[in-house]
């Protein structure tokens, strides 16, 4: 990356980044807000992590994460069951909110990461990169898998007195997925994405020039 200026998103200070190729965390000089983290090979890492996350996402949603035994009867819950039961009780607002924040938004984020970084990894120019990054920025606070994880723990403690709780396969996949997603998010830096796109564009333009000559 070239030396550049970075505007702090918290206090609007212009920070000069004179050693952009040194890996590490960059902080604002005025308010010490975290500007971004530079890690080499961000592309490959985020792509790989999100492929793993997609696989875990399918596992989590396919298998039940908790089973509950009371007096001979059993019930299983995966992500979809809680939503189905909420819709059945005509709790549209609650059902939709849980559907969006635990299934739709996380899935969209994983897919966008895969498309955005996968296309760069395989040396394509990602189309609609602006739109994808805009959607990523919008969705970031609304994917709440980590919060849902805490909720599962609280529910286990609440239900443990009423019957037997058995954690399912997908709970482990789910925990792993939450960590992987947090890890890939901590590396994400749109600046590098655009540096990369800029380089690709230049290369393509030069190719076109050569072709016309």
């Amino acid at each position, binding site marked *: 990356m070239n030396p550049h200026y970075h505007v702090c998103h918290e206090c609007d200070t212009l920070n000069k980044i004179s050693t952009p190729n040194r890996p590490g965390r960059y902080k604002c000089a*005025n308010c010490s807000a975290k500007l971004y983290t530079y890690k080499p090979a961000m592309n490959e890492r985020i792509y790989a992590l999100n492929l793993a996350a997609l696989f875990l996402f399918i596992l989590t949603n396919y298998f039940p994460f908790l089973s509950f035994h009371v007096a001979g009867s059993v019930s299983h819950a995966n992500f979809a069951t809680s939503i189905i039961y909420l819709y059945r009780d005509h*709790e549209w607002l609650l059902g939709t909110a849980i559907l969006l924040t635990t299934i739709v938004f996380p899935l969209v984020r994983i897919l966008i990461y895969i498309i955005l970084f996968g296309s760069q990894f395989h040396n394509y120019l990602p189309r609609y990169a602006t739109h994808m990054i805009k959607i990523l920025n919008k969705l970031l606070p609304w994917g709440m898998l980590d919060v849902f994880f*805490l*909720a599962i723990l609280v529910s286990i403690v609440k*239900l443990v007195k009423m019957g037997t709780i058995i954690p399912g396969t997908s709970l482990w996949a789910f925990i792993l997925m939450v960590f992987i997603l947090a890890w890939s998010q901590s590396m994400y830096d749109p600046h590098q994405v655009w540096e990369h796109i800029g380089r690709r564009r230049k290369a393509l333009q030069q190719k076109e020039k050569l072709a016309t000559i």
Partner: protein
Amino acid sequence: MRAIDKNIAACPTCHNLVQMPFGKQKGYALCPRCDSEVYMRKSDAVQKTWALLLASIVFYIPANLLPMMHVITFAGTESDTIMSGVFYFISDKSYLIAFVIFTASIFVPILKILILIYLLISVQKRSCMHRQRRKKLYVLTEIIGRWSMVDVYVVGVMTALVHFAGLTEIKPGIGANFFLLVVILTMFAAMSFDPKLIWDIKECNENREQ
């Protein structure tokens, strides 16, 4: 040096620096690198945040008074509000879980609303006091806000697991809906506030430079 003094804004999508064509706060420019709209500041940040904040305060009252969920057993129906849930766990000596529910459902929303009111009033009064601390408080509201969703999810998980007709059943209460709205509205309120406004007051910056 601050970006506003140079009439520069950062593109929210690609972090490119964009020279703003218009004078100060109004209007936007298009980023030459990625074609996003670039604003100097979030538009009408203070008014929008106030509106969302007041709405969330209004919804916060029924969220706490109305039942979060109903536990239906053969012995009858029992309704739980947030507070009664906390008291239940305290009487049950599950202090950790009582602490988690109290923090996520009562402490965090109130803290968030109070912090935002403090930030809005201090910006409107053009205060120069404690700017570092106010910036930290804003970051805090952004981080903790989502965690209030815990109680909504707990209701969802419990409804999914406990539905043995005739034996025990758990159904969500109307309070959960209001609580959900409080969480969503406070999150939108925190997002619509612009922390750069804290540092925008000219007189403070001049004093500091002397």
